[in-house]
């Protein structure tokens, strides 16, 4: 005798829990296996959850969920060795319900989120690794967990085991990602008093800021830095493309240190106490690296399927995870009605994603990852922009030069041929 559920979900992150929640609500018998001690124990992201999709599942979730701050301010900063140029955006509309994004602490948020699925009737099984899928007659028929008598049968398995998904590979639904398709994110949570954060980032009450950085700190590596404000801490980190990191022979920790030491970043962190350090992979290639999304008796959701959108200004994943989990649940519900869990029946999942923002966004931004691989974005351009402004603003008693001669001089000094700059602009505008 083996244990049996209608649906087994592997992984209690946003994707898996969303699927389990929707299925439990629809009256299906669903179990979530989580390898961590608790949901969120193994989960990490930069820090911003875009919550509109979640708002549809749990209206006004921010009133009850452990969110840190709503993001009212966003900024993008280019860094030279010691200078910076920022675009700082704030709008009242992001500071009112239903808000736009929230900073969250994943161990806290993911536990809360999983509890909502449990309240809806899902069974949560922590401390349990799923080692393999159970195959019968070419169809996935359950999972093998690393416990005594580890066979758990199910009509359908939802693979939600994250960016490093070993199960999607074993299911033959994806190959190992190419290095250039993966980013490595490292992050520190740095504690600061609430009042200091609000003064330093110019925030009121529960408003938060999301600041993104590119530039000289990365030593030419395709990487970005971020500083997000939590209630009484900051999430500070960098995401570096693995192929670029390997090529440039720079250490990921050296990158993080160099980011934190930049004068424009250091002042934001001053006096803070590092509480935790974390690392995680990010499937940052968008559409190019999305896995097969379904097979006979199996669906892949969230990071495991590579459903992350690189817009060029940020990496968004959790909202795509939630939407994909909900779409998978709907496909499974319909499959149950038909009594058919074959590939053909589960294909509904992919059709839903194609019609929704999930695959549409990834399609819209499909050329962005290649654009972001342009090394000039991480060294020459940020330095050149800072050098241009430095000369423009400098008042030192010498005769001022015309803007166009400053531009020509700055481009020459940074070895940027004008045709290359124009080409990058045309290509960038065309892509975005």
């Amino acid at each position, binding site marked *: 005798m083996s244990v049996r559920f209608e649906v087994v979900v592997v992984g209690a992150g946003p994707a898996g829990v969303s699927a389990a929640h929707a299925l439990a609500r629809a009256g299906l018998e669903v179990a979530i296996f989580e*390898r*961590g*001690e*608790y949901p*969120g*124990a*193994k*989960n*990490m992201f930069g820090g911003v959850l875009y919550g509109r999709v979640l708002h549809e599942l749990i209206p006004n979730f921010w009133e009850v969920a452990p969110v840190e701050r709503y993001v009212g301010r966003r900024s993008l900063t280019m860094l030279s060795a010691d200078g910076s140029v920022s675009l700082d955006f704030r709008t009242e509309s992001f500071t009112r319900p239903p808000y736009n994004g929230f900073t969250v*602490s*994943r*161990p806290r948020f993911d536990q809360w989120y999983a509890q909502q699925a449990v309240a809806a009737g899902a069974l949560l099984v*922590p*401390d*349990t*690794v799923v*080692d393999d899928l159970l195959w019968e007659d070419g169809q996935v028929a359950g999972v093998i*967990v*690393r*416990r005594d008598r580890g066979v758990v049968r199910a009509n359908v398995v939802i693979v939600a085991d994250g*960016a*490093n998904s*070993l199960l999607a590979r074993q299911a033959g639904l994806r190959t*190992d*990602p190419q*290095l250039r398709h*993966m980013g*490595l994110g*490292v992050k*520190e*949570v740095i504690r600061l008093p609430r009042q200091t954060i609000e003064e330093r980032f110019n925030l009121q009450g529960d408003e938060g800021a999301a600041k993104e950085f590119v530039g000289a700190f990365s030593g030419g590596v395709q990487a970005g830095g971020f500083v997000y404000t939590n209630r009484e*801490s900051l999430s500070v980190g960098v995401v570096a493309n*693995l192929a670029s*990191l*390997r090529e440039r*022979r*720079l*250490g*990921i*920790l050296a990158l993080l*240190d160099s980011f934190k030491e930049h004068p424009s970043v250091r002042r934001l962190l001053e006096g803070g106490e*590092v*509480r*935790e*350090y*974390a*690392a*995680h*992979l990010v499937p940052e290639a968008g559409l190019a690296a999305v896995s097969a999304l379904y097979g006979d008796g199996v669906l892949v959701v969230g990071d495991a399927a590579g459903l992350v959108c690189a817009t060029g200004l940020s990496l968004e994943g959790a909202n795509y995870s939630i939407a994909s989990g909900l779409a998978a649940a709907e496909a499974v519900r319909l499959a149950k009605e038909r009594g058919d869990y074959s590939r053909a029946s589960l294909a509904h999942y992919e059709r839903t994603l194609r019609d929704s923002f999930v695959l549409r966004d990834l399609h819209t931004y499909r050329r962005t990852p290649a654009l972001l691989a342009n090394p000039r974005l991480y060294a020459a351009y940020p330095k050149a922009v800072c050098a241009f402004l430095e000369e423009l603003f400098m008042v030192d008693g010498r005769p001022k030069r015309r803007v166009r001669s400053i531009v020509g001089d700055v481009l020459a000094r940074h070895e940027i041929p004008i045709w290359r700059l124009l080409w990058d602009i045309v290509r960038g505008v065309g892509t975005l």
Partner: protein
Amino acid sequence: MSMVEERLSLVRYVVDTQSHIRVDFTLCSNCADRPCLLCCPAGCFTCEQGAVRHAYEGCLECGTCRLVCLLGAVTWTNPRGGYGVSYRF
């Protein structure tokens, strides 16, 4: 204390008695660039007297080592349920 050790001291782990990562060190001797040494965010790979060593205890379970090792020397499984890293913040 190196910077990585200081950082890892802040992370909560439930350390298993067995490693979840197996490294075929015979392949490392022929590896010129050894990306594992630089890319592992937990500094689990070190080089002692020319030989690559691996310590699993501080692993953050990101999976980077398996991808950056193009020789395929790294065999990666998930740690046992409930073991390994447990983030708190």
